């Protein structure tokens, strides 16, 4: 499964949930599949999608909140997994697109071929930690986790296959913030 296949499965499942997207190809690829005002495209600050998502989830406890993260981002901020588990927001879903490489910088390997990140999440205290490897498994896994009490973790294993001809996010950072905040406030 390519990352784009995972996004095409995921995108129709999303409603109005605030969604924080990791930098690099995750933001770019998802932007090209479905641009929505609830998407916070984090273009810099690698590693912080998870802490930003936690902040949103804590500030808006009644709203289901998603983090669409990458393996490199999660490995860079493994301590944040502990913060999420300790704060235990029931409304937080953490989805990781795991391609085992830093793809946007030339596909240097991460450590997620050896390290099972969903096991790390479970052992640190997430209520659930699941892994899927086939596109047809994404929808049922997502629906199961959506019904569950958070924080929950879903790892989607993909192959590195980003189409670099795809454009970057065209909104300015301030536009991204404004749309995102309006979608939460409205």
């Amino acid at each position, binding site marked *: 499964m390519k990352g784009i296949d995972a996004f095409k499965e995921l995108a129709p499942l999303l409603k109005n949930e605030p969604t924080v997207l990791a930098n690099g190809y995750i933001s770019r690829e998802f932007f090209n599949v479905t641009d929505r005002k609830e998407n916070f495209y*984090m273009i810099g600050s690698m590693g912080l999608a998870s802490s930003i998502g936690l902040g949103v989830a804590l500030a808006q406890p009644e709203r289901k909140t998603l983090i669409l993260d990458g393996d490199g981002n999660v490995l860079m901020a493994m301590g944040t997994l502990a913060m999420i588990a300790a704060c235990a927001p029931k409304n937080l879903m953490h989805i990781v697109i795991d391609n085992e490489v830093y793809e946007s910088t030339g596909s240097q390997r991460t450590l997620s071929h050896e390290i099972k990140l969903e096991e790390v999440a479970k052992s640190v205290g997430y209520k659930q930690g699941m892994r899927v490897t086939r596109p047809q498994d994404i929808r049922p896994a997502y629906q199961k986790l959506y019904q569950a009490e958070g924080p929950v973790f879903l790892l989607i294993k993909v192959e590195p296959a980003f189409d670099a001809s795809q454009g970057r996010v065209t909104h300015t950072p*301030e536009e991204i913030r404004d749309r995102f905040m309006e979608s939460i406030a409205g």
Partner: protein
Amino acid sequence: MLSSKIFVEKLQGNGFDFFTGVPCSLLSGLIAELEADRKAGYIPSVREDAGVGLCAGAYMGGKQPVLLMQNSGFGYSLNAFTSLNLIYKIPVLVIMSWRGCGGKDAPEHIIMGDINEQLLETSGMEYAVLDENNADQVLATALKKIKNDKVPYTLLVKKGLFDERH
């Protein structure tokens, strides 16, 4: 000396309602006050950059956050400030202890203590040095920066300003 309790009340009185941080002994009284106050809901951050991210998310979710850190954590969080807060215009009140101020401290604090103000200025982070008498004034400035300019604002705290509890 500035009372930690009174300063926390001033923060809350000015609408700050989300608190996180990584500790410093110079801020130990403040953190103890926040931990004792259930409605403050103080969250221990594991790293200062994670605290920056947490506050950014909380801000976008409608909170008015405060991040406490030692100046050593400014190094860790510099990229977060420059590639998140300053370009998206996401404000946060940073309460930063000024270890190494005046060159009198443990060796690991001397260089950051020496460049603390320059580093804030160079990176476009506006700040004020908090003292016994200017709390209301600097908080008013901070609120203006946060609400109008939507930028982070930092209060530097020297040793001895707050009661220490450790």
